């Protein structure tokens, strides 16, 4: 019941080689002060051998509703997409999984090249110039964007749309307080950032404007009009993306003048995993490369004249620059970046476009079907991608409870974070939903509302 290979006899011999008799002697030799030595065993459950533990874990896992057995229309920042079998088979190869950050490039070319490919793909889908090797998640990627914009300024202001994911805003607030910058929220109009609010909020102190697109309600923002306003000032235009599948069909941030793209990559090849590990995406225009947070892989030449890959521009990073680093990040989400690389290769140029189109079409089909149910209307009248808000005839909580009885996980209850939207639900529909799936949601809603009358 241990992953320690050496037997007691071997450890005894090793202790003798070290010059002590017992482990206790060795611990004494390390000078841990007696008064802080733990005097009793840790109060933890006793060890479980592998088979017993597997049973236990299977039991715990089956207390959760998994999407193989529940039909779900939850999105709101995490999205269920079709995961081709080939993806986990490749990224889970032990050579990748059990390696550390590629500090020794000669024996890490595999991971390094994969990340170089990842950086390229993120540039390709966002049309930005450079992307880093990943950050923790979407929310912290947005924080890093704000920090990049703030730079060394001792004060500064960041404007953020209220249609940015509430969890991201909460995270931003925490960091803004700690790092010391002002965060102001931009009001909404008909489910998107109010241009008027933006215009009046912009000041010379504004370092960044953060807009989620598609936004938390699934609506498309007026990204080009916003760009015009933002770039009248020196503020950086930060586009936050929580559903990068949208880039299959939507104009890319690079096309409409974004300075930074910060987002969540879970959608592209990683499991939902109850929200983590996630994958922070970060891409910028060329001129911000040396202010980038996080790792960067670059191509170079070896002493035999061959091409190869290395971690580069490390002088931005904490292990060199310490308190003057561009960010404190060290461990990132490399394996998920690899998963995304394999996933995007598997979908490819055509498949990624189709992904976007199918999400778009299916969500629109669902929105039409749902809003045709008596009592249901679209909350906004806005272009959207694969998520849309609906005004329901009953509280979302009640509807969702009834749906659960039918093994359906309904939409996100918007009133949780936006009290102004009572009885409002946010439905996400992706290529993973079949028509039958959508129709059975519709039927269930009809049924629930019908019997509630």
């Amino acid at each position, binding site marked *: 019941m241990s992953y320690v290979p050496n037997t007691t006899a071997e450890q005894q011999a090793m202790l003798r080689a070290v010059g002590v008799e017992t482990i206790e002697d060795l611990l004494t030799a390390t000078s841990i002060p007696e008064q802080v030595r733990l005097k009793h065993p840790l109060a933890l459950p006793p060890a479980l051998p592998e088979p017993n*533990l597997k049973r236990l874990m299977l039991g715990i896992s089956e207390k959760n509703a998994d999407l193989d057995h529940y039909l779900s229309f939850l999105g709101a920042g995490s999205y269920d997409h079709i995961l081709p079998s080939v993806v986990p088979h490749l990224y889970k190869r032990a050579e990748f999984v059990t390696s550390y950050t590629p500090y020794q490039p000669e024996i890490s070319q595999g991971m390094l090249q994969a990340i170089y490919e990842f950086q390229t793909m993120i540039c390709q889908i966002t049309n930005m110039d450079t992307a880093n090797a990943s950050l923790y998640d979407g929310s912290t990627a947005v924080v890093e964007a704000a920090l990049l914009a703030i730079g060394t300024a001792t004060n500064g202001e960041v404007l953020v749309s209220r249609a940015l994911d509430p969890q991201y805003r909460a995270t931003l607030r925490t960091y803004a307080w700690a790092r010391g910058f002002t965060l102001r929220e931009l009001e909404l109009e008909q489910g998107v950032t109010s241009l008027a609010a933006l215009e009046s909020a912009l000041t010379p102190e504004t370092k960044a404007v953060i807009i989620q697109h598609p936004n938390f309600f699934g609506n498309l923002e007026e990204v080009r009009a916003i760009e015009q306003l933002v770039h009248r000032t020196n503020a950086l235009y930060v586009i936050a993306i929580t559903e990068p599948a949208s880039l299959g069909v939507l104009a890319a941030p690079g096309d409409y003048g974004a300075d930074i793209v910060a987002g969540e990559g879970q959608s592209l090849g990683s499991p939902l995993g109850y929200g983590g590990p996630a994958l922070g995406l970060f891409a910028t225009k060329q001129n911000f490369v040396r202010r980038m947070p996080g790792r960067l892989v670059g191509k170079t030449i070896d002493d035999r004249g061959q091409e190869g890959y*290395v971690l580069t521009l490390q002088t931005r990073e904490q292990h060199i620059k310490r308190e003057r680093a561009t960010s404190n990040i060290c461990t990132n989400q490399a*394996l998920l970046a690899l998963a995304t690389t394999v996933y995007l290769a598997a979908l490819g140029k055509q498949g990624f476009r189709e992904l976007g189109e199918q999400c778009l079409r299916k969500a629109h089909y669902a929105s039409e079907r749902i809003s045709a149910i008596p009592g249901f209307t679209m909350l906004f009248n806005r272009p959207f991608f694969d998520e849309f808000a609906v005004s329901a005839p009953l509280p979302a909580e009640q509807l969702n409870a009834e749906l659960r009885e039918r093994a359906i996980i309904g939409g996100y209850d918007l009133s949780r974070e936006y009290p102004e939207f009572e009885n409002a639900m946010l439905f996400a529909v992706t290529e993973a939903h079949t028509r039958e799936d959508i129709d059975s949601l519709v039927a269930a809603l009809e049924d629930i509302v019908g019997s509630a009358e």
Partner: protein
Amino acid sequence: MSTEQLIFEKGAPGRRAATLPELDIPLRPLESLLPADHLRAEPAPLPEVSEIEIVRHFTHLSQRNFGVDMGFYPLGSCTMKYNPKLNEDMAALPGFARVHPLEHESLTQGAIQLLFELEQYLAEISGMKRITLQPAAGAHGEITGLMLIKAYHEHRGEGHRNIVLIPDGAHGTNPASAALAGYKTVELRSDARGGVDVHHLEEVLAAHEGNIAALMMTNPNTLGLFDEHIVEIAERVHRAGGQLYYDGANANAIMGITRPGDMGFDVVHFNLHKTCSTPHGGGGPGAGPVGVAEHLVSFLPGPLPAYDAESDTYYWAENDPLSIGRVRANCGNFLVLVRAYTYIRFNGPDGLRHVSESAILNANYVMRALQDAYDLPFDRACMHEFVFSANRQKRNDVHALDIAKRLLDFGVHPPTIYFPLIVPEALMIEPTETETRETLDEFIGMMRQIARESIDEPEKVRQAPYTTVVGRLDQTLAARKPDLRWAGSAVSQPASPIPSRVR
């Protein structure tokens, strides 16, 4: 095998691998769904490759990568121990991997239970009161912990405290995190025994009286040495009104032996991807939970998992009004936490202690076996790792870097080099507990051979490696002319006029 083309250089127009289901709803023109200016003009120029090409490409890449499953990986500070396959299987269970974070509590009882229990286990191991599982890695834990300290001081009306003390051997994330939290850092010198120089500490405390926010420490520190004066240090910092932050990256040395909470620390972060053996995945994901003493609990980011005994249900408790808020979306790197939970349950209390004891033994074994061949700047019994200096080899113009590169030819991963910064030509060796005595002996043999070579054939060491798929790479070129993405013919030009690839 000696080069592998980029995936972009493979394939052909029209090729594809994964296929989506056929559209089963009425097809309508995209333009009828979205205004034209929202639509993408050109598809992203992603690769066009078939499934077999993808499989071979990434299989080849994997063959160009070294992991723990292939050999010894004594990378100091990183705790590259064996990653149990069991943990991988548990994390892949559909009831963990296929669960949406916003599912109703009634549908996620298992997940909340697991997190609730994991919190308790980590609290017990560290001797802290409560734990947040949100942070995604060690550095994320650090900034979280420092924010807790900041909130605490502010709450007490001592928001002016702006100094964080950091020993000179500290990991780079410590000062970086302190800066990010809006603090000024002051470096503490180490003493001759490798611990914090208590006199210097006193001086600094005096110099910044009233302004000390915290001391960040790793203990055992980055030299692998346990700070003998920890109790005294804690006492003095507390007396100065500061908080004690414990960088738990080295917790693999202390499980069941000693606890930061008992040493006097107020905040602790874990590196579960080190201590609890979740794999590093080529650089992540990790998990960096943060534990706090009682007086800091209210400030924790939330929500925290909770249990209602009466109804036997788990739920997410609402945040305390004093909470700093969130440090990320959702509950943390959940699937990493599942692995850590599995690991702790597998080992149990005795097993965890055995882990730490064995890690300490393995380190001392290697250190003692090699100390005649390499300089040992601090000659004390070490904890789970230790630091040699290649100063002696340097006399023959053989540097720590050369030794590392030469080790590649022996099929092992080299130690961490040039860290901690306080040891010149540092070679930081962490064998971990999961290595066999034979492996350690083989490594000792390699290191001895390289020590000999450094005298007899230094050029051989300087020119290493010989057996890797690429040789030493030109880092200067990489940094001077950054080539950070492929921009071959298939890439459409970025909209911005700035060239996308400088070459």
